């Protein structure tokens, strides 16, 4: 078994892992001392590159490569930490913010040093009151101890950290929408390019990284990038927090090595499906990911493996449904979510997601028509032409295509569930 990178402290000290005392007693801020004392910013960057760490927010982009996109010599630069966790099925960043906020703060300060950022913003989801309060306290404590300030630990490197409380808009988890929101506007995504690394917050070079991503950085500095890369698979190195929920006996967050097969994860850590049942369907990587059925249970939980079957490991959220489930209602639930969270900028998403929701609603309520199944695909195809993953899109961001993925993937795998909800032909004829 690989070392635990992210959750060791919270498991060993469940009663006070979030305090500065517990953090310092368990080796906290040693990585920051090491980075500032013995390493140049370039060396820290090299270790993160060598670790192969990939973003944990959903897209899975290699972190070290992302940092490398900053234009040389342009300042000020900002580091923005994405803690707007809201992807249905995902609840890991909340745990990291609540149970180990100092690990995140240390990772963020080290990363700011590596990329030359003078100000870090931690964008925390508004509905997570406890997470926000603990983050604020951790930042204040770190400031008192000199881990944040105009000359961190007397090194001459200065950084400010601001915890920013969001206010309920899933789209702000999309990095450009997050920046627009942080600037004080409605959270509308922006066209890319320019990418945030070139023109981000206040049109300055900006790196946006997820909470879990940066929480890995202290360990990588202490143990070296190579040690991190030795865990997991070649293309998905390290450990990862997987959020398991739905019809399993033991849902929860589990830090395991990338590459473990889903079946083992469900049976061993999830303790199997409720009531001794079997898996019918599962969502392998958050609400946006195309669904899979039981024939995919032996896939390893690694980004490249999910890519190869046209889905994704996304945010690491896995929702399991047992054989008693008709998938259409949960699909409707997700599509309602995306329609509700559409920012309204792009016509195909603003209009299309509501049409999809309406059609699904009438199917769920037993008022569907046979032609609705093709109509769903037709509307979805206007939002995400070709209906595949990674998606083609007619929109600025991928929210619209994300609403389509549950529909086309379940119409392919579980068309019978849709048909079972359609009124019998005789009823239709009688009603006509």
């Amino acid at each position, binding site marked *: 078994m690989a070392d*635990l990178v992210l*959750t060791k402290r919270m498991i060993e000290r469940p009663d006070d892992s979030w305090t500065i005392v517990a953090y310092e007693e368990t080796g906290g801020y040693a990585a920051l001392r090491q980075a500032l004392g013995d390493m140049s910013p370039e060396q820290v960057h090299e270790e993160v590159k060598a670790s192969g760490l990939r973003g944990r927010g959903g897209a899975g982009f290699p972190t070290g490569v992302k940092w490398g996109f900053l234009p040389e010599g342009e300042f000020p630069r900002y580091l923005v930490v994405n803690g707007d966790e809201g992807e249905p099925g995902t609840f890991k960043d909340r745990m990291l913010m609540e149970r180990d906020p100092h690990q995140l703060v240390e990772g963020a300060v080290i990363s700011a040093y590596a990329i030359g950022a003078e100000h870090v913003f931690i964008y925390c989801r508004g509905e997570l009151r406890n997470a926000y309060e603990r983050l604020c306290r951790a930042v204040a404590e770190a400031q008192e101890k000199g881990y944040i300030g105009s000359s961190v630990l007397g090194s001459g490197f200065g950084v400010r950290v601001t915890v920013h409380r969001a206010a309920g808009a899933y789209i702000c988890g999309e990095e450009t929408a997050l920046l627009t929101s942080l600037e004080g506007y409605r959270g509308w995504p922006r066209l890319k390019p320019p990418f945030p690394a070139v023109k981000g917050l206040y049109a300055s070079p900006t790196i946006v990284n997820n909470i879990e991503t940066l929480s890995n950085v202290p360990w990588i500095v202490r143990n070296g990038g190579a040690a991190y890369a030795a865990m997991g698979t070649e293309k998905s190195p390290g450990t990862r927090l997987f959020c398991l929920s739905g019809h399993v006996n033991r849902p929860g967050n589990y830090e395991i090595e990338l590459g473990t097969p889903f079946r083992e994860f469900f049976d061993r850590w999830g303790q199997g499906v409720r009531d001794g049942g079997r898996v019918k369907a599962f969502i392998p990587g958050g609400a946006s990911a195309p669904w899979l059925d039981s024939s995919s249970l032996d896939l390893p939980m690694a980004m490249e*493996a999910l890519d190869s079957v046209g889905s994704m490991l996304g945010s690491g959220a896995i929702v399991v449904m047992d054989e008693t489930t008709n998938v259409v209602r949960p699909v409707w639930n997700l599509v309602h979510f995306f329609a509700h969270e559409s920012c309204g900028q792009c016509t195909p998403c603003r209009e299309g997601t509501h049409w999809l929701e309406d059609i699904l609603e009438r199917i769920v309520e037993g008022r569907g028509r046979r032609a609705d199944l093709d109509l769903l695909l037709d509307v979805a195809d206007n939002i995400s032409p070709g209906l595949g993953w990674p998606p083609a899109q007619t929109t600025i961001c991928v929210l619209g295509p994300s609403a389509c993925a549950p529909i086309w993937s379940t119409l392919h795998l579980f068309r019978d569930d849709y048909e079972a909800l359609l009124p019998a032909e005789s009823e239709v004829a009688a009603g006509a």
Partner: protein
Amino acid sequence: MSKFFEGERLEAAVAKIAEYPQKRSAILPLLHMVQDDLGYVPRDAMREIAALIDLTPAEVLGTASFYTMFRFEERGKHLVSVCGGISCMLLGSHELYRKMLDHFGVASHGTTPDGTFTFELMECAAACGGAPAVEVDYLFFENVGPDEGVKLLEDIKSRGLEAVHAERGSVTAPLSPGAVEAIEAGPSPRTADPRAQSPEAMS
């Protein structure tokens, strides 16, 4: 109505604005300051915010109205947010929500006649491992069974949110019961090194 941002509140607002390179970034934090105190954001408070950060009131409302947390009308003493997200729904949260509404005799997103509770069915609350989840004033209660919801709220009504949350609420995301076993379980029993598996072999 007297001004909201006066004295200590004004000092706190000025300090908050100074945290950002550009004043406009302080919109959400200032709106939160108002709502945390009053339970909603009155129009006059938005005018004050506009003056503090050199915007028009319309620009403040334009931003504020995008975010679902902000309310522009008075609400009940406590905000009850039942998670309607997929994992909670699979484990009965919509039925839980309905039972609460029926018990208190209010419509969805309504307020009880005595002004104690305002209800909402919220989008995924990031508590899927503790489904069904309920937030009361953004404090978590997890694994709330279909019949427990009403009891929980009656309890809060008679004994206060703080006392009930201290006993029954989740102060933090619970550690997975299996997390410790996961470390002790030792090496994963997978037969082949996943590095050896090509994408073709997986599909």
